[in-house]
């Protein structure tokens, strides 16, 4: 008889609009800084884009990686590899049987810089100037493949694509790889590098972006009455997941436990969340059941909350419905107010924030909320971090994506 392995988190890595690594990102988040800035180029003017700002990486990947790597990897893979190296080192560079090591790294958009650059080159200079590395750089599994190659993982490399839920879904899938016995250690997370004029124009065309051009740092304001859309961000978050037995055997420090994964789909609309929130509610409930926890165990929720008028409230009402009376004790953080929306990287970065909140007993703030939406019926952490209780605690990280993908992860303190 075999039991299902427990899954723990032993390493964190990130490169984000707030910092080039986890420590600087977390410091900036606790300080309530914004990563959004006016773009240092004239795209808005040149192309007539309605949005002139975004949340670009604080430390450009080309300043971190050697030049041959930046030429062989799309920026989305560059960000993933930077975060993966940090997470791996943080986990103590574990000795793992390669057959028992996996990589699951997702992107919502894929190698769009490579795709569009190659097309520009072809139109300007002809087909013979298209570089041979174009396909391996643009393919959406490229970040997963580069992480797989980095560590020599042979248990499987996967790239689950579910728009803005991708990073969380990757971590959920990695958890299942360990639970089902396919791997002992999985490097998992999400990445995105889509701050290019075309996707900026396309998101603006769908009217999902904030147009607060005169105040980029104040533009992402989840749950504020003046919210008007999300801020396009970029970056990557990667975690090292490990079976509890493997971590214990090598004496690894357990940062937190990944105890619940809940997945659902809305079956409703290609971009709009289902208004009653039933799909999101189902994902959260499934995650709690999977975790074997009750609502009383949850002290914190890292919301998906992108700062859109409709989406933020559907989620908040869903959280309230799932947690019932226990929702009164739960503190909600919407960290996209600071990072912008990392799309495929968001769910992974926010899993990292959730782990850090449990470790530090400190829920990160939600900035820019001058006047909370009166329909918000949850305790939102505003402006400054909020202390979380001692003892065994757990938190939910929600991630939802275009297409109606819903992922809820339950993380518990070590």
């Amino acid at each position, binding site marked *: 008889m075999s039991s299902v392995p427990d899954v723990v988190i032993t390493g964190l890595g990130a490169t984000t609009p707030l910092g080039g690594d986890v420590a600087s990102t977390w410091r900036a988040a606790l300080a309530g800084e914004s990563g959004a800035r006016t773009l240092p180029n004239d795209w808005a003017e040149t192309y007539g884009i309605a949005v002139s700002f975004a949340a670009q990486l604080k430390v450009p990947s080309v300043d971190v990686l*050697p*030049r*041959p790597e930046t*030429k062989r990897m799309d920026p989305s893979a560059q960000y993933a590899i930077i975060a993966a190296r940090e997470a791996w080192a943080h986990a103590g560079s574990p000795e793992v049987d390669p057959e028992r090591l996996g990589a699951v790294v997702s992107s919502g958009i894929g190698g769009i810089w490579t795709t569009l650059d190659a097309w520009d080159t072809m139109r300007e200079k002809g087909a*013979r100037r298209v*570089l*041979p590395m174009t396909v391996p750089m643009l393919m959406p599994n490229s970040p997963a493949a580069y992480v797989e190659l980095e560590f020599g993982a042979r248990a499987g490399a996967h790239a689950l694509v579910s728009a803005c839920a991708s990073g969380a879904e990757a971590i959920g899938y990695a958890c299942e790889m360990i639970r089902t016995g396919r791997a002992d250690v999985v490097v998992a997370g999400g990445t995105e590098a889509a701050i290019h004029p075309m996707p900026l124009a396309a998101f603006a065309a769908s009217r999902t972006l904030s147009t607060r051009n005169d105040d980029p740092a104040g533009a992402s304001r989840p749950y504020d009455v003046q919210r008007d859309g999300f801020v396009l961000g970029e970056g990557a978050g990667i975690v090292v997941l490990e079976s509890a037995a493997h971590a214990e055997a090598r004496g690894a420090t357990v940062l937190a436990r990944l105890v619940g994964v809940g997945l659902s789909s809305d079956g409703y609309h290609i971009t709009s969340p289902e208004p009653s929130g039933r799909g999101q509610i189902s994902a959260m409930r499934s995650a709690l059941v999977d975790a074997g926890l009750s609502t009383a165990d949850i002290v914190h929720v890292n919301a998906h909350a992108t700062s859109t008028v409709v989406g933020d409230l559907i989620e908040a009402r869903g959280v309230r419905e799932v947690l019932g009376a226990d929702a009164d004790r739960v503190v909600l953080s919407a960290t996209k107010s600071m990072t912008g929306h990392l799309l495929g990287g968001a769910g992974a970065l926010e899993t990292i924030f959730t782990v850090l909140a449990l470790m530090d007993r400190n829920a990160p703030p939600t900035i820019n909320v001058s006047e909370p939406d009166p329909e918000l019926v949850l305790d939102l952490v505003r402006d400054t971090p909020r202390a979380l209780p001692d003892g065994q605690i757990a938190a939910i990280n929600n991630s939802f994506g275009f297409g109606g993908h819903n992922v809820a992860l339950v993380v518990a303190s070590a």
Partner: protein
Amino acid sequence: MAYTEQEILAGLVEIVSEETGLPADSVLPEKSFTDDLDIDSLSMMTIVTLAEEKFDVRIPDDEVKNLATVGDAVSFIVGAQG
């Protein structure tokens, strides 16, 4: 305007160095792309593509397998210039 052999060598060394990350002073004419510089076929085709553009020449695919060393490539490009 044709490039001199020296210019072609210098330009090719730069391309190879950028592609591989090897220091430019290690990319010498007698070095073998595969055995010494550890360049795989995808990297070799990248170098060919970039060299074609830089020197405005055509390096046919059939010819690439004959370019064993950096010096071979320089000689071919010298001869292929219009």
